Structures are given as structure tokens and as C-alpha cells.
């Protein structure tokens, strides 16, 4: 089954790339953009068919490799 992992920077961690995107949007004429935060999505295709088990595995993957929990949050969802 497919599992999606959303990885985002924790609140309070400065995101220079988000800031650059915000500036570029402003330059394109999009008014009223108060903030931009950039993250990433990781799509996992797992042989596991049990949703709970697949999410548990994905959680372990996040803790061990996929996210740097010093600066990033992760959220697991089923596709």
C-alpha cells in the first residue's frame, strides 16, 4: 500500500527557501502572501497491506532516516 510522509520544518526554524519563494511570489504580483514554508513529500510503496502496520513502519523510517527531528516534523498519511 502507498503511504505518504509529509516533512515540514518545525515552527521557529528559519526557512530561507520559503522566504525566497515568498519574495518571488511578491515580485510576480501575488499580494497578501504572509508566509511560505517549504517541505517535502515522500511516497512509500510498501508490500504491507495492513494500514496500521504500514504506518508503524513508516513512523520508524521517519525516526531513523526520513526526517531530522531536530528541525523537522513529519506526518504520515495513507494515499
Amino acid at each position, binding site marked *: 500500500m502507498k503511504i505518504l510522509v509529509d516533512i515540514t520544518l518545525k515552527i521557529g526554524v528559519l526557512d*530561507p527557501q520559503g522566504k525566497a519563494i515568498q519574495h518571488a511570489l511578491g515580485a510576480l504580483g501575488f499580494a497578501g502572501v504572509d508566509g511560505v514554508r517549504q517541505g517535502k513529500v515522500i511516497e512509500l510503496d510498501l508490500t504491507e497491506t495492513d494500514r496500521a502496520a504500514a504506518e508503524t513502519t513508516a513512523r520508524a523510517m521517519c525516526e531513523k532516516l526520513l526526517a531530522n527531528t531536530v528541525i523537522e516534523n513529519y506526518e504520515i498519511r495513507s494515499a
Partner: protein
Amino acid sequence: MKSAVIVFPGSNCDRDLAVAFERSSGQKSEMVWHKDASLPEGLDVVAIPGGFSFGDYLRCGAIAARAPIMQSVVEFAKKGGHVIGICNGFQVLIECGLLPGALMRNSGLKFVCKDLELVIQTENSPFTNALTKGVKISVPVAHHDGNYIADAELLAELNGEDRVAFRYADNPNGSVDDIAGILSANRRVLGMMPHPERLNDPALGGTDGAKLFESLMASMATA
């Protein structure tokens, strides 16, 4: 002084590091491939070089930190071994948990490549004992993700325990508190973004970088 340099796909200045160790100690450095399961016997120091290991995929240093050899490096450090991580090596040491904090994209978003002045912050480390606190040395930097992040608590701990090894005289990347390099709690693991091994011969423009390797050699000799 017996040294080893870990080599990953995408490492750079690994040969320069080996030359720096050989010049300071008179002993050839061992090059260790990342897929090796264990380190050579009897090592005094392990170095993680700069570069772009595994193409900086996922996060800088993240994949390299989980390479087979790194488990041995972590054990070596935990047993009191000396480890130095330079540039990408600093990122790897943070990713494998030997040093705290995080290194993020430079605040200016640009890759920074130039010689910079570093201010020595402590003489109390095997890497800086031949240097003088407050003195500036010139060392090249070349990185895109050298913006050191630490929360207030960690910053207080690093400052309180005298674990900031170097600060930038002119901060190139937005690092908190101008931090360019930090030490582990036992002071035997050093991570730094600048490249001392690149300024190790008058023909390359200077020898300020050699002082770190001479410090290390001197501390080994007296140990």
C-alpha cells in the same frame, strides 16, 4: 598518530586530508571505503571529509550517516576516539548524532566559496591547543548548507561548556552566534564547515589550516 579518512561516493578533499595528516604525523593515512564494516585497528583519529556524499539527497549527510562504516565511527568516538568532520563531514557527524544541532541552507541561499577569517574560541581541545584564543586564522569555506542552528538551550550549553571551537569573523551563512565549528562534550569530536586541509601548503596560498593538524599531533604526543 594513526589516522583514517572515510571515503563516500561524492567526497572531496579526502586526499588533501590524508596529505595533511601525513605531513603532521609522518605516517600515511588509511583511506576507508564507506561500505567497509569496520575501521583499521589502533587508530588515533578518524576524519570525515567534505564533499557532497550521495549527492546531498534527502538532507546533506543523511545517507552517509547511515553507511555501514559509520556505526564503527560512532563506536570509536564513544570509546574516546578523536573524530574530525569537515564541511559535509560536519553534516554527517550531526546526522549520526555525534554532534548536536543542525546545518541548514545558507541564509543568503547562495553557495559560498571563499577564504574567510576564523576566530579561535578555545585552546582547550586536541584540535586547537597549538592555537591562541582570539587569534584569527584564514581558512577556505565552500558550502551551500552551513547555516548552523541551535535552540537557546543548546546554545547556552555549547557556550557554557566552552564547546564553540571557531566563530566566523564575518558570518557567511547565517549561522547562529557566528558558529563555524563545535566540539563534543568530551572535546574529542570536532565538526567545522571551513576546510583547514585546503590551506596546508604555501603553494596553495597559506598554511593556517596546518595548525589544526599540528595541534592534534602535539596532543597525541603528550597523551
